C-alpha cells in the first residue's frame, strides 16, 4: 500500500538576521545582511501509512511545528521531497488542503463574531460537504464533543476547552484523510484533555483517519499512540513503537513506596535507594535489570507496604539521554 505521507531528506533552514538597535543601527540594517542559518529541520525521512495515529514529539524548538507547517502546505522546505496522498502540499495547495484538517492549540480557525453553528455552516460551503453528510457529521460531533452546550454561542465567548472542541469538529466536517494536531490540549484542564483524547481516538478507530499529533506531553502519547517519532534540533532521533522507545531508552524508572512504618534498612536486590523521607522511599532501577513487578514482589516479601507507584522518565529526560549518549549514532 502506498504511504499516505512520505517525507525524504526534508530540510528547512531559516535566515535569522542580526537586528541592530537605534538610529545608526537602522541605517546599518539597510546595508548589512548579517545572518545566521538556523536549521529547523535537518534531514528528516519517514513514511506514514493510512490510518496510523502518530505522536510527533520533541522539546520546544525541536522542529515539530515547522514539519507540520510543511506537511500542511503553509511552508515551503529548503530541500527534500514531500508527498501527501501523492501530492506536493505547497504546489497543489487547494486540492491538498481540501483533504486535510488541522487544529493548532490555543489558536482558532473559526469566525470570531459568529455563533459556532454558523461557522460550521460556512465551512460546509467552503469545503463543499454534501448536506446529508454534513448533518451526519454534525450530529456525531454534537454527541461526542458535547457541542450543544455552545453551538449558538459566538466563538469569541467560548472558553479554551470549548474553542478546541469547536475547532476539532470544524476540522473533521469534510471527512479529511489526515488530521494534523499541533498541541491541541495545551492549556486545558485534565478533564478537557481527556475528553479530546477520547474523541481523537474514536475518530482514528472509526474512520481510519490518519492522525499526526505533535505534543511534548508523554502521557498523552502513551494513551493515544503506538508509533512515536522524536525530533530534536531538526533531526529525527527515534521512529518506532512506543514500547521499543521505553525498552531501549526508557533507562531508569523509579518506584515510589510508602511503607507502613519507618524501617531502618530498606535495601532490596535489583534497585538502589534514591531518596528517603520518613516512610516514603524512592527506588531507582533499570528497565533491563529487573521488572517492576519483580521488584514489588521482593519488597512486599520483606516489608509492609501501604502504597506505591511507578514513575516513567519524562520525554525531555529521555530525549536528552538519547542525544547525550548518542544512542542512535550507529
Amino acid at each position, binding site marked *: 500500500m502506498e504511504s499516505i505521507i512520505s517525507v525524504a531528506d526534508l530540510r528547512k533552514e*531559516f*535566515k535569522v538576521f542580526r537586528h541592530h538597535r537605534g538610529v545608526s543601527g537602522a541605517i546599518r540594517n539597510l546595508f548589512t545582511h548579517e545572518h545566521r542559518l538556523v536549521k529547523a529541520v535537518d534531514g528528516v525521512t519517514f513514511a506514514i501509512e493510512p490510518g496510523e495515529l502518530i505522536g510527533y514529539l520533541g522539546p520546544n524548538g525541536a522542529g515539530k511545528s*515547522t514539519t507540520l*507547517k510543511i506537511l*500542511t*502546505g*503553509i*511552508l*515551503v522546505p529548503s530541500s527534500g521531497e514531500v508527498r501527501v496522498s501523492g501530492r506536493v502540499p*505547497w504546489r497543489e*495547495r*487547494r*486540492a491538498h*488542503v*481540501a483533504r*486535510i484538517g*488541522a487544529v493548532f492549540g490555543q*489558536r482558532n*480557525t473559526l*469566525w470570531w*463574531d*459568529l455563533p459556532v453553528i*454558523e461557522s460550521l455552516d*460556512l465551512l460546509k*460551503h*467552503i*469545503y463543499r460537504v454534501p448536506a446529508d453528510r454534513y448533518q451526519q457529521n454534525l450530529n456525531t460531533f454534537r454527541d461526542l464533543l458535547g457541542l450543544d452546550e455552545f453551538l449558538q454561542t459566538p466563538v469569541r465567548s467560548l472558553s479554551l476547552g470549548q474553542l478546541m472542541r469547536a475547532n476539532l469538529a470544524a476540522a473533521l466536517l469534510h471527512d479529511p484523510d489526515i488530521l494534523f494536531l499541533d498541541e491541541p490540549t495545551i492549556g486545558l484542564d485534565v478533564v478537557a484533555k481527556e475528553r479530546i483524547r477520547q474523541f481523537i481516538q474514536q475518530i482514528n478507530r472509526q474512520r481510519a483517519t490518519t492522525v499526526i499529533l505533535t505534543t511534548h506531553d508523554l502521557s498523552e502519547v502513551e494513551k493515544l499512540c503506538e508509533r512515536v517519532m522524536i525530533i530534536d534540533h531538526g533531526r529525527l532521533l527515534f521512529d518506532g513503537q512506543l514500547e521499543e522507545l521505553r525498552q531501549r531508552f526508557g533507562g531508569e524508572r523509579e518506584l515510589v513506596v510508602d511503607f507502613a512504618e519507618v524501617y531502618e534498612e530498606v535495601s532490596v536486590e535489583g534497585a538502589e535507594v534514591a531518596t528517603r523521607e520518613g516512610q516514603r522511599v524512592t527506588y531507582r532501577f533499570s528497565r533491563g535489570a529487573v521488572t517492576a513487578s519483580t521488584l514489588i514482589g521482593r519488597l512486599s516479601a520483606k516489608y509492609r507496604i501501604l502504597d506505591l507507584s511507578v514513575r516513567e522518565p519524562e520525554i525531555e529526560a529521555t530525549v536528552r539521554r538519547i542525544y547525550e549518549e548518542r544512542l542512535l549514532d550507529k
Partner: protein
Amino acid sequence: MFRLYTRLISIRIRSQMQYPLSFLFDTLGSGFGTLSEFIALWAVFTRFGTVGGWTMPEVALLYGLAETSFATMDMVFSGYDPTFFSTQIQRGMFDQMLLRPLSLPVQIFGSEFIVRRLGRIGQGLAVLLLSFFLNPIQWTLVKIILVPIVIVSTIAFFGGLFIVGATICFWTVESLEAINIFTYGGTTMISYPMHIYGDWVRRFFTFVVPAALLTYYPALYFLGKPDPFGMPPVMPFLAPVAGFAVLATAFAFWQVGVRHYQSTGS
C-alpha cells in the same frame, strides 16, 4: 466562488450593522462630513476666483470622479487595506487562509467590507452629479460610456495600490503610514487640475505612475478643454490601461509576496 464571496462579506456587513442607529450615524456622518469639507473648499475657492484657470464646477468634476472611485475602492478592497492586512497576518489569519480550499484573493476580499464608506461614496456621487449639472458638457454616447469606465479604472488603480501596500506587509509593517501618500494623497492630487503641479511632478504622474490619465485627461475630454501639454488625442481613453496595468502589476507583486511568506514562515 462568487457565492462564497457574498457569503463572506454578508458576515462582515451583518456584524457592522449590529447597532443599526450607530451604523446609520456613522455612514451619514462620514458622508456629510466629507460633503461639508467640499462645500467649505468651494466657498474658499470662489473667493479666489479660479484654481489655475479652472472654475469650481470644473474642479468639482475631477473631485467627484476621484472621490466616488476611491471610496468605492476603499469599500470593496477593505480586506487589502494595508493596516487591516498587517493585523490579519499578525493574528495568524493568513495561515488560516492558506489552509482553506479557496483562492486567497477571494478570501481576502471577503475578509472585510466597510459598509460605512457608502457615506463617502454618496458624497462623491453628489458632487459628480452636481458637476454634470453645472458644467456645459456636450454629452455624446462616448462620453456617457466613458464615465463608468473612468470610475472602474480608477478603482482598479487604487485597488492595485492597496494590494501593493498589503504585500509589503509580508516583509515589514513598520513604514505602513507612508502608503497613505499614494492612496489618500493620490486621490487628493487627482482632484485638482494637473497643471498646478510643477513640471517634473506632472510628468512623473503622467508617464511613471499614470494617475493623470485617471481623471485629468478624461475631464479635459468631457469639458471640451484643450490639452495644455499637447499630448496625443488618445489620452482621455487610456484610463483603463493605467488602472488595469497597475492592478496587474500589483497582483504579480502579490504572488511574489505570497511565495516569500511561504518560504520564510511568519
